[in-house]
């Protein structure tokens, strides 16, 4: 480990957001068992903005995203050094219930994953989970409208969620995630299983969602980051330690990352020299 001590030092000046950081994420080291997956990544998530995570495969961007709402807890060998603070509260605090964290910080996954139940029940799922007392029907409709899916499904709300096309399924999952009005929405490559038209629809949707929610978006697609992200975090892979360890190379306003990158590695990546 000492051989990599020099490489461990942060290379770019830490990014400090102009607005309020909803989530302050400082990951010194993230392990899966003995494998060091991510190191030295300070990724603040700014309120009301879309923060994009880009970088080559295996750079740990999904790992970072999943540690924000403790989805990594489901992997028994996961452990980390550092802290994740949500509105100043330690997400990994001893008295914190990860279930509650995930109700505030919702998630949309890479593969569309509707439950095998009706479209209506899919969207109402979270509301029922939280024993929502108000008008469930109205909230379901609102969520489907915001997810730009209402017109397509309003006549078949009792049909199975699995009967929809891939793009519709993903918008259904977004509707399901926003029905409970979470504060932050984590999106892990939400368009990677979608065709270009569906991708365009979901991107349009993200831009509308940021009016109400804070969004963190992992994407493989640099054009997508330039189209929707306000702030972009670029992660790289360090293979000097023998393993493949991801780390934050540079983070800044999206325009700056793509047009005026401060790091050589960022410059090479955004110009397509490696992927």
């Amino acid at each position, binding site marked *: 480990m000492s051989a990599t001590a020099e490489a461990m030092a942060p290379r770019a000046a830490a990014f400090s957001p102009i607005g309020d950081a909803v989530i302050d994420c400082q990951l010194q080291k993230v392990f899966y068992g003995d494998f060091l997956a991510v190191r030295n990544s300070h990724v603040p998530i700014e309120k009301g903005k879309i923060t994009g995570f880009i970088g080559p495969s295996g750079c740990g961007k999904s790992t970072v995203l999943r540690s924000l709402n403790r989805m990594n807890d489901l992997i028994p060998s996961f452990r980390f050094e550092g802290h994740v603070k949500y509105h100043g509260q330690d997400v990994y605090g001893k008295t914190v219930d990860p279930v509650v964290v995930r109700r505030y910080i919702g*998630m949309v996954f890479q593969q569309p994953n509707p439950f095998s139940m009706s479209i209506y029940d899919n969207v109402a799922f979270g509301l029922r989970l939280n024993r929502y007392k108000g008008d469930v029907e109205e909230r379901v409709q609102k969520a489907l409208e915001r997810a730009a899916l209402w017109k397509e499904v309003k006549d078949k709300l009792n049909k*199975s969620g699995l009967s929809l096309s891939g793009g519709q399924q993903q918008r259904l999952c977004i509707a399901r*995630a926003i029905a409970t009005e979470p504060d932050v929405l984590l999106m892990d490559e939400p368009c990677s299983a979608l065709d270009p038209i569906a991708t365009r629809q979901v991107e349009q949707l993200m831009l509308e969602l940021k009016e109400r929610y804070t969004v963190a978006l992992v994407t493989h697609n640099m054009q997508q980051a330039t189209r929707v992200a306000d702030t972009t975090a670029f992660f790289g892979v360090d293979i000097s330690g023998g393993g493949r360890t991801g780390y934050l190379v540079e983070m800044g306003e999206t325009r700056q990352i793509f047009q005026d990158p401060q790091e050589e590695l960022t410059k090479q990546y955004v110009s397509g020299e490696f992927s």
Partner: protein
Amino acid sequence: MSDIDLTSRPQESQRLSLERRPFELRALTSGVLTGLTWGIAILGSIPLFSVIIMLVAEGGARLDIEALTALPPAGFEMGGGFANAIIGTLVMVAIATAISVPIGLLAAIYLAILDPHSPLAGTSRFVAKTLTGFPSILAGVFTYAVLVINFGYSAVAGGVALAVLMLPTVVLAAEESMKQVPKKMTDAAYGMGCTRSQVIWKVVLPTGLPGILTGVMLAVAGAAGESAPLLFTALFSNYFMSELMEPTASLSILIYNFSSMPFDNQIELAWAASLVLVLIVLVFNILARLIGQSKV
């Protein structure tokens, strides 16, 4: 053109031809082997169909309203039926289901979700797999030792013996179908802020339900046809059951008893009862198929 070699035998591909050559060795071998598999498949189904044909031929004649509603006849008596045995079989299978399904389901939840890799899970899984090949008469002997010696022959004891036989099938089928619920679905549930029990009750069980019910139906079908465990536990009765704690008739024991009697009437009834038993098993198997196919 002669460069193109599709058969890797240069001398044959001198003139390129895509025509089928039915007398080529390769085509002949393929034809013979295909014919052979057809023949073996038909051979394999002969016993099955001959049993069904024989049951229908021998038992069909006596399968009337009287057979389904009357009590078994005594000695030289004519007519009669096996209504009490049908009821007894259904009641004991119901008792066995009521015992084995809740236990089996909870065990499967433990094996599939709660702690799949613990030593206890490994041991339970191994024991369950071993028990699927458990000689059914031993389930009867076991229940005899545990229940019958103290409480006498009864429908409950019969149900317990059948439950012992059903349990491993239910556990393994339920575990398998819960394991097949895609991880992305449970991830979604956790991501929505579900607790582990909510994930199990609201997502894993409903999604795995068709597979679980298929397993239960197959176990029920197997239990309905068992006779050995009931010999030691439910015994038999010539009358309708009035309570659960008395010796109870069942179709399989009735068949066993009547088929060895020297009276034509009883032997005919045994055939008819066999047909009814096969039909019951068939209904449960068809139900299992239908449930297994149905998708939400």
